[in-house]
């Protein structure tokens, strides 16, 4: 997948010919005038803040006129968005950025993304959304392909009034970022934790495992050789089976779990979730850094990167 920066001409072309207001999701469109809009006009950062648009036509005029490098809208709704005052409520947002995944099997360089790690980010987004809908029983969960990963944006009224602390705890729950009191329960957080730990553990190689405090080489080699057995034990919650690996004392096991929990926390940027005034890339806009469209994903299971390639890129590639 080739990604390049959009030129100012390409941006103009995109907003003049291709940008379509119908691609703005309803959950944003219906609250458009209550959101703060931010723009990065020239690629130096989103410093053009405190914008309010009463109608989508006004927003369209702005985009066509300025062809910004990036466009953002707040997760928060305000009484006075142009002053960022009178906070009413905020979506619950999660940012799963493929370039920042703590473990990448694809081997692409830090800060880079490839189709494989974007798909990995997609799978993580699916897992998080399943827990949001299952354990937390939330509705109105939307996926947005951001250009380098995925945003989950929840507009369920039940969570829109939550503050930073509660949102931070949701991140811990979804990621499996804390060791539960009892790891063996069939349902609840215990199950979420085991699933997340299993995913992380399966992506670890010998080199990374050796970085865990207390893990000696013979134990690491044994775990690698019998990875499937170890994974099975984690998934089933029969953790005493893990202790049967020679060299895995109680302390080492705890240190391994702590390492895995810490790694789990890195699969989403918690700062985004707890920030109730965050601006997120506007679905329908162009991610000029990678020449991809930030787009609402209606069916996350069937998402294809091709759906987010702008027409001007496709035409240039002769597709």
């Amino acid at each position: 997948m080739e990604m390049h920066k959009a030129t100012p001409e390409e941006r103009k072309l995109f907003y003049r010919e291709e940008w379509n207001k119908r691609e703005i999701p309803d959950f944003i469109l219906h609250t458009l005038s209550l959101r703060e809009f931010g723009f990065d006009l020239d690629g130096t950062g989103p410093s053009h803040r405190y914008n309010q648009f009463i109608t989508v036509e006004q927003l369209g005029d702005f985009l066509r006129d300025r062809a910004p490098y990036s466009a953002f809208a707040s997760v928060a709704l305000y009484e006075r968005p142009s002053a960022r005052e009178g906070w009413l409520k905020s979506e619950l947002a999660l940012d799963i950025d493929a370039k920042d995944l703590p473990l990448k099997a694809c081997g692409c360089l830090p800060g880079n993304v490839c189709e494989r790690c974007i798909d990995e980010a997609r799978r993580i987004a699916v897992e998080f959304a399943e827990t949001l809908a299952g354990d937390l029983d939330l509705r109105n969960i939307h996926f947005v392909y951001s250009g380098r990963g995925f945003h989950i944006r929840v507009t369920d009224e039940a969570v829109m009034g939550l503050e930073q602390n509660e949102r931070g705890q949701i991140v811990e729950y979804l990621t499996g970022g804390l060791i539960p009191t009892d790891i063996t329960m069939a349902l609840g957080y215990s199950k979420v934790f085991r699933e997340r730990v299993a995913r992380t553990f399966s992506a670890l190689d010998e080199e990374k495992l050796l970085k865990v405090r207390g893990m000696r080489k013979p134990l690491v080699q044994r775990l690698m050789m019998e990875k499937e057995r170890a994974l099975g034990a984690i998934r089933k919650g029969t953790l005493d089976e893990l202790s049967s690996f020679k060299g895995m004392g109680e302390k080492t096991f705890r240190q391994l779990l702590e390492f895995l929990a810490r790694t789990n926390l890195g699969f989403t940027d918690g700062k985004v979730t707890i920030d109730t005034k965050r601006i997120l890339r506007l679905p329908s806009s162009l991610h000029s850094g990678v020449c991809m469209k930030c787009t609402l994903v209606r069916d996350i299971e069937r998402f294809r990167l091709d759906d987010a390639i702008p027409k001007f890129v496709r035409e240039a590639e002769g597709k």
Partner: protein
Amino acid sequence: MFASEYLAVLDPFAEEAKKIVEASPPVDAMPQEIIERATNRVNWSNKEMVVEPNPESIRSEILSFYLMCQGVASVSYPYSREVRMISDSTRNTIRYRMYDLFKRGQEELCMKAVRRSIKLVELEGENEAKLGEVEIPREDFYKLRDQELEKDGIDVVDDRVLHQYLPRYAVRWVDLAPLLRHRRVELTKLYLVKGWAVLTLQDLWNFYANIVSVRTEEYIQSVNERISESGVPSNVLARVGERVSALLPKELTTERFAMMPSGKLRPECFPPCMKLALNGVGIGLRNYAIVMVLTPFLSYARIAPSGKVATRVADFVKDISVVQDEIAPLIFEAAERCNPPLFKDHPQEKANIFYHMGFGMATEPRLGDSGKSKWYMIPNCKNIQMSASPLCHPDELCRKIGNPRTYYFRKMSEHMKAGAGE
């Protein structure tokens, strides 16, 4: 038989309690026994927490509760050690009363109090549990029970106490948001099924007691802000507050008590209005912003007076350098940043700043001067909004507080809890 008035004993913020407060004598005419009870309740034994079901005992209980809260509000600040101490003691008291009433067969009364604050459903089934269509696996059911028993250090299962450790209820997790916010409950420690948190009776007592405890803190905050506006509190309140404060342990042993906000100022915790004032303001706003708002804010935030009514800086600091080297330079720099600089055309305002900290009209204050003038309180948000609206750019937290000082101490408390403290 317990009358419904007894609900006030389980929830001092219930209508039944409010009626008692409305009919109470003025604070200055409060009977001595209620004053004593207000002070002593912080250190009650379990036996003393129990209130007899008669109107006089209920009345005495409620009035002493409010006297304790108002007393502490008059000598400390939100999120202070005093506030935490009485918040904790209130939680323990309510929890014990729930336990005691259940033991005495008054389950219905307890549940009535709980249901006013928490929407809950009962699980179906006896030794297993169904929650709508979801069946809680039998193994999980017993593991939840065993976890509860372990928390209380109980090895041998006794039929008489067992029922309180069995999962019996479920509440929507989002209804527990106030407890999650104050970290009284952790989401990852809840057993969540389809949006429901499964609870034992013991959990229910804990959660309910914590809800009352959080409300107690909020109530003290509101009283504190009222006092900030009206000036010096009554002698009775000050005396009760000072006596409660004197009960604080000298050693800061627990993590929660290690949240002393006095000490180094943390500008990242300042409310938006103070950040603006620190950057200097324009003509027409300068005097009010620097002298009336920033000066009391920085002095109260830095010194964090608690234990007695804050009338003199010298009662809380032993070294004038706190004022001269830490507080005053920040104020002077902010005055210099004003447009035009405040002291350029109003040099007398320098002395006025120390005057507002209680040192009289001095430019080189000494600790001995403390008390020569009044140590001005920080105006409440609504006054700042009216007198200096350009200073007021409220953020999310501003909506929940009524005084900039509350904002600062709350932010400090959150930072400390999040481990960002020093």
